[in-house]
């Protein structure tokens, strides 16, 4: 597979385009948005320094790099302080009308087992197919599909009140 170095403009373009989804993905491991942003910056700054050669299609590489960096960061954070699962939500942009729903979604995601949370983020906010998510996480397609199904069921249950109100379904 062809590999190359990305120029600074390409890197910043990737950051603008995939930054929010990558941040959500990082947050599925570290649960703290500030740490998630640090992870993201760490990955992109390494690219900007020009020492990293990436595949011709770099998006999958970015997800793998963020995953590894987030897992490393989590190990460090765990050594320093206990993970704060009740940290205030800012993972989703929210308007006044859906702030409560966004907070509930964040809390529901944090309650999911990590492997379920990961596949939900990849499928919903990164727009990956289940096959792509399976390939990225290194598990079989059937396992990925069942994780996704379990996760959707739990989220649906938690978010039922907000769906009934229909405030987000315009």
């Amino acid at each position: 597979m062809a590999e190359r170095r990305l120029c600074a403009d390409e890197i910043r373009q990737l950051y603008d385009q995939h930054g929010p989804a990558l941040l959500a993905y990082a947050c599925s491991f570290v649960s703290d948005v500030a740490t998630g942003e640090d992870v993201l910056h760490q990955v992109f700054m390494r690219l900007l320094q020009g020492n990293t050669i990436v595949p011709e299609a770099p998006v999958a590489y970015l997800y793998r790099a963020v995953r590894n960096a987030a897992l490393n960061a989590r190990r460090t954070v765990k050594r320093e302080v206990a993970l704060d699962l009740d940290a205030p939500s800012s993972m989703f942009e929210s308007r006044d009308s859906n702030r409560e729903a966004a907070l509930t979604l964040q809390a529901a995601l944090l309650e999911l087992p990590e492997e379920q949370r990961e596949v939900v983020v990849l499928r919903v906010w990164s727009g990956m197919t289940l096959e792509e998510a399976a390939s990225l996480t290194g598990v079989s397609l059937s396992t990925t599909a069942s994780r996704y199904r379990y996760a959707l069921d739990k989220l649906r249950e938690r978010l039922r009140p907000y769906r009934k109100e229909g405030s987000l379904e315009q």
Partner: protein
Amino acid sequence: MDQDDRHFESFLRDFQPRRPRALPAPQTTASTRMRRLAAGFELAAVFGCSIWFLFRGSPPNQTANAIPTESTATTERTGEHLPALVPLTGLAIQDLVRLDAALTRASRSVLPDLQRKDSTLHLLAKE
């Protein structure tokens, strides 16, 4: 995936993940700054030396007309009025005849004069 799942996915996608803060500008490390500083000094030194060589020997147009004495010959030998290397190099590349003339002119002030009666070498030759 049934219809309800698709609706629910669409409902979830209505929540936009927040944008991460902007990437910081890449910082220059201390070693990079030192390398740049050293390169700057080096350039300044090369430029300074070139200028010094260029202007060091140019005034002696007068030396061609001046009567060389033993004492001037001595001082010339110490390098005070040696012809500038940069212009001579330029002449060597462009015009050999002018280079020859410049070297002859310079030799009058740089080398000892054997023909003057009071020159040391003339006296020594007599003895």
